[in-house]
Structure formats: C-alpha cells, structure tokens
C-alpha cells in the first residue's frame, strides 16, 4: 500500500499555491482570509437580524465575495489550461451534499473557522484553539467517513 497512489507533487504544489494566495491577500490588504465567513457575511445583505449586521460581517462582505469569485476564476483557469475542460462528475448523491452541507455550514460558523480559517490561517498563526479545532474536525470527519463506508454509503 502506498501513501500517495496518485503521486504527491500536485498536492504539494497545490498547497504551496494556496499558501501564496493567502499570503498575497495579507501582503496587499492585511486581511486574514478563511473561507467559511463568506457564507454568513453574504446573508448580511438580506437578513436584518443583529447577528448578521455585526460590523465584522457587514464590513467584510464585499472583499469576501471578491475572494470567493477569485476561487471560482482560479479553479476555472486551472480547469481550462491543465484539466482539459473535462468535467469530473461528483458521485455523492445530491441530498447527501445538501444535508451534509448544512452541518458543514452550521459547524464551521459556530466554530468560527473551517479547513482554511482554523486549518491554514489559524495554524499558521500558531493559535492553540485552532490546532485543537483542526484535530476535532479531523477526528469527527474520519469517524463519519468510515462509518458511512461500513453502512454501504457513498
């Protein structure tokens, strides 16, 4: 058994590229850019409840949307230049994506960070709560993904 059945260079190169993106944002704007906040900050345009009208969300909603648009554009650039424009189908059923997605959104926002917020920005800042959050979501994800296989799911 190999640890990297599909090779390892694209993983490392991709990770470095992600780090350069987060670094560029920091160098140009001083902003710390995780990805889960955009899902709350964008609601601030339409939801008037005080939580969604907090300064941190309202004042960051524009650059967070621009950051998210960049994600789409960057992935599209890779896809057209190097991915051959071939669509890779997602084999997870739609209801599983939707239902699991609710847990992802609820949990990441309650935790105030996800794989990028706690995982990249938090660990790179040597923040102890972020390290523990990463261990927690990794453990929960390992268990869940393996239980799903056991019960015959996708």
């Amino acid at each position: 058994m190999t640890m990297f059945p599909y090779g390892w260079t694209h993983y490392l190169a991709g990770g470095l590229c992600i780090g350069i993106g987060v670094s560029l944002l920091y160098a140009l704007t001083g902003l710390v850019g995780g990805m889960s906040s955009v899902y709350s900050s964008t609601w601030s345009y339409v939801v008037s409840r005080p939580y969604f009208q907090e300064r941190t969300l309202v004042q960051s909603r524009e650059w967070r949307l621009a950051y998210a648009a960049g994600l789409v554009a960057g992935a599209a650039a890779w896809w057209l230049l190097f991915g051959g424009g071939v669509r890779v189908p997602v084999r997870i059923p739609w209801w599983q994506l939707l239902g699991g997605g609710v847990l992802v959104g609820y949990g990441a926002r309650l935790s105030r960070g996800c794989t990028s917020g706690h995982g990249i920005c938090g660990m790179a800042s040597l923040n102890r709560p972020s390290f523990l959050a990463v261990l927690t979501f990794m453990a929960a994800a390992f268990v869940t993904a393996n239980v799903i296989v056991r019960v015959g799911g996708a």
Partner: protein
Amino acid sequence: MSTLAVSTGNSTSTPRSVPQLAAALAAGGLFGFGLALSTMIRPSVVLGFLRAQDLGLMLVLGGAVLVTFVTYRWLPRVMKRPLFGQSFGKHSAIMDRQTYFGAAIFGMGWGITGVCPGPAIAGLGAGSLELGYAIAGIALGALLQGLMAKR
C-alpha cells in the same frame, strides 16, 4: 480603529477600495487554482484521505500552512503596512465550547460530503456544478447558525 481590527481578527476598519477588492480577487484566484491543482475540489479525493487511502491532503494543508506561517511572521517585520491596507490583521481563535462543538459538527458534515467551504465554491469553476447543492447546504447551515446565535 486599528485596535478593534486586530482584536476581531479582521481589518474591518480598513476602507474598502477597488485595489483591495482586486487584491482579494487575485488572492482568491491563486487559492482556487491551488485547490483545483491539488484535486481538493473533488469530494472523492477528500473522502479517500479521510478513509486513509491517500494522504495527499496532509501535503496540501502542510504546504499552505508553511507558506502562510512564513508570511504572517515575516511580512509585518519588513513592511510597515500592507500595500492597500491600514494594518496587518491577526487571526484570533477563542478557546471555548463553541469552537470545539462547532468543529465536531463541521467534521461530521465534512465526512458525509467530502466538501468544505472553500472547495465547494472553487469546484464550481471546474465544472462540478453538483457542488451547488453543497453550497446551498452550507449557506443554509450558516443562516441557521446566525439565527440561533444568542446575539
């Protein structure tokens, strides 16, 4: 002003400007390119990691953390302020029950879908339109979290 920005982890007091939005777009572009290159936009690859069949995700996370660690440490020493901003922000995380309870719930969802917030968005750019379901779910979850929050 900048005190608040630092304490909240975001340079919220920084006036938004066209260069700043362009910077966020460009930075997001590199982030998205990296997510696609590393195949993290494919749920099957992420689930393969979670099932210990392929440890690639560790290299992705490790590479990203390494570069970001160096930048977060070194840039504030060599630059007075960011090019289009007032001050360098700091990532803040709070050691409380919500952080870990939320992380556990997030992890369950991640294990069910193989999708996390960034790759869900980036995947759209590489034609994986099914990820729209995940985005809808994540947005709904974020809405519920905000509606149930105490303040």
